[in-house]
């Protein structure tokens, strides 16, 4: 691609002075830079290659994985057999883990989004003493990586007796300072004060204002937070790894890692093909979520970037 762009862009370079004229800038007619194209192409390859590798290798049998070229299809195309085997291996534990992941995501990420929205809205639209303190705490919390808190949380939950339960993963997932901060900023700009005042004059109660008016205006922000939270919870490995010692409660991340460890165990039958196929199956829902929610995601990202 970079090569084909070479000629036209060289021609354009000679036309450079023209750009200095007071012509209106049109983003659709931006000059193509071969350098930029090359860098972006590399970036594209860099991000798509692992995905490509994953899909190629998920189509191979365990023995062909090691005897054929890793970057191209080879031997028998076994993707569908692999999928079937993945879903049925060891009494279908993959589906069980899939269900667990769904529970963690729906309750954890859904709850986190709800709390962030309510909290962010409250912080943006109501004045109360200690608001600056809350801001400091939230900003401070954003700076602390969640991983750092896992072990202390484990020790605390252990005292409370709730490790090895769904709650031990869901409760920490509900706490999302970044989401709260995002919703706070978003709500501040997205909901005109006048609108709320008008609603209050009409006699609407605060909860009704929130659910009937504000929530609709907050939707792009909410979707953004939801996507962040869904991805974070879906991929969360460390938290469930530490909290849960019961294979029946594992999410997919920890379960697949356990399958992978079989290859490093004497007498264990390696099932790399199923680990790979399982990984493919695991990223499909996330891709679907992204594609479906893409338009909200984009408007959410751009929110607040332009002063209206």
């Amino acid at each position, binding site marked *: 691609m970079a090569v084909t762009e070479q000629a036209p862009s060289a021609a354009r370079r000679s036309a450079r002075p023209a750009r200095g004229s007071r012509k209106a800038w049109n983003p659709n007619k931006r000059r193509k830079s071969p350098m930029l194209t090359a860098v972006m192409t590399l970036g594209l390859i860099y991000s798509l290659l692992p995905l490509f590798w994953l899909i190629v290798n998920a189509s191979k049998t365990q023995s062909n994985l090691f005897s054929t070229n890793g970057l191209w299809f080879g031997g028998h195309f076994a993707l569908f057999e692999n999928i079937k085997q993945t879903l049925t291996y060891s009494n279908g534990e993959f589906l069980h883990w899939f269900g667990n992941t769904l529970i963690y995501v729906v309750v954890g990420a859904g709850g986190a989004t709800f709390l962030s929205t309510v909290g962010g809205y409250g912080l943006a639209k109501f004045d109360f003493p200690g608001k600056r303190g809350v801001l400091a705490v939230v900003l401070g919390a954003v700076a602390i990586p969640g991983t750092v808190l896992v072990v202390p949380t484990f020790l605390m939950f252990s*005292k409370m007796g709730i490790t090895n339960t769904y709650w031990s993963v869901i409760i920490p997932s509900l706490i999302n300072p970044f989401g709260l901060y995002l919703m706070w900023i978003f709500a501040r700009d997205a909901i005109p004060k006048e609108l709320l005042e008008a609603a209050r004059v009409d006699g609407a109660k605060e909860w009704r204002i929130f659910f009937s008016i504000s929530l609709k205006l907050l939707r792009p922000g909410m979707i953004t937070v939801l996507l962040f939270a869904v991805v974070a919870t879906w991929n969360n490995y460390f938290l469930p790894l*530490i909290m849960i010692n019961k294979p029946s409660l594992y999410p997919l991340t920890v379960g697949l890692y356990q399958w992978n460890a079989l290859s*490093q165990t004497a007498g264990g039958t390696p099932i790399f093909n199923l680990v790979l196929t399982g990984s493919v199956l695991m990223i499909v829902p996330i891709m679907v979520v992204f594609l479906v929610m893409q338009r909200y995601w984009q408007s959410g990202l751009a929110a607040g970037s332009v002063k209206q």
Partner: protein
Amino acid sequence: MTATTRAARAWRRGAATLAVGALAAVGMTACSSSSSGSASSGSTASSSDIAAALQKKSTITVWAWAPQDKDIVAAFEKKYPNVTVNLVNAGTSTTQYTKLQNAIKAGSGVPDVAQIEYYALPQFAVSGSVQSLDGYGFDSLKSDYASAVGDAITVNGSLDALPQDTGPMALFYNEKIFKQYGLTVPTTWDQYVADAVKLHAANSSEYITSDTGDPGFATSMTWQAGGKPFTVNGATSVTINTADAGTQKWATEWDQMEEKGLLAQTAGWSSQWFTQLGNGQIATLVTGAWMPDNLETSAAAGNGDWRVAPMPTYTAGTAASAENGGSSYAVMKGSSNALVAAGFVQFLATQPGEQILANEGGFPALTSILNSSSFLDQDPAYFGGQKINEVLSSAAASVLGGWSYMPFQVYANSIFPDTVGKAYSNKTDIYAAMQAWYKASAAYGTQQGFTVTTK
């Protein structure tokens, strides 16, 4: 069950596991610094007490990852129908140790029995986290295992676990490649190095073996060279000999290959590694006796090519081996069912349990199985019909005695890449790097409240 090598190699692979390694260290802080006494202060019970307890209704939780344990548990529950064993795979090796440390620290959720590799046992034993098995009538069992295995399960004079599988080291080599390039099967390390030079000179894509710097391998090789760098004296005192003669002997020998780039830089247990084992680009493996099953399942392309020979030595004509990997099973302190837990460990570490392990591809510790004709006569086609267990069983008998690991070996292994691993990637002196590793480990031990004497 996972060998030391695997554990170490596996953990270098992923950042997530790295974090686990670091956590093992965090978890340890409390345990070791607050360790008040040795693990030997346990209750006493006779074998009749255990037998009686096994007849009562009870449930025990066992944390283990060995794949054979499912069938061992089934056999146990069949023999003792009143006992329910809750077998949990809480993770392999370091993953499980992290969880174990966390549970110990939290004071709840500790299983009754845990699978612990030999290299990690001192860490849990010295900190008083495992129940001493002294006084359970198991002392006589020690003579059922090779003496090196007996040493491995005894920490500070207290019997702290019983063995499941072991990994006496041997030389696995690809006979097809040896024939093709006219190599002799080495009996000494000098011959091994000569083969390495000859093979790589003949074909630059061929390597005698792969080694990217692995703590489990390095400690086992030091062991086989007669090294004894670590001495545990009591619960809080360790001596680390940074000028250990065995360490120097191995490092100097291995250096000749490492500095000349004669070792394939393929990460162990990666798909590339198995590919190269299958197609002969890695011509030998010096590793534990649990390897055959893994070769058969993961490097199927090498079917018929591989053979097993005794581990090369430094002096021709004297057999010497070391343990690499292998696991023991310990009763955890605080178990509310210690008698039943001890009964389960005994079942697993003796007859029926060990035989089930052997039947399912594991390499048992029980000498009577290792010397039984049904075990010795196995002639797997993968190894061209060679009776490989004859070689491996005699390796078990030639393991040198007197070795011990550091009581913070799990952490020490996690920092191995910082010193020795770096030397491998820069092709610099291994011995100097090993000394640096010992010193860094000693510094950590001191921080943890151990009295570390370095020589």
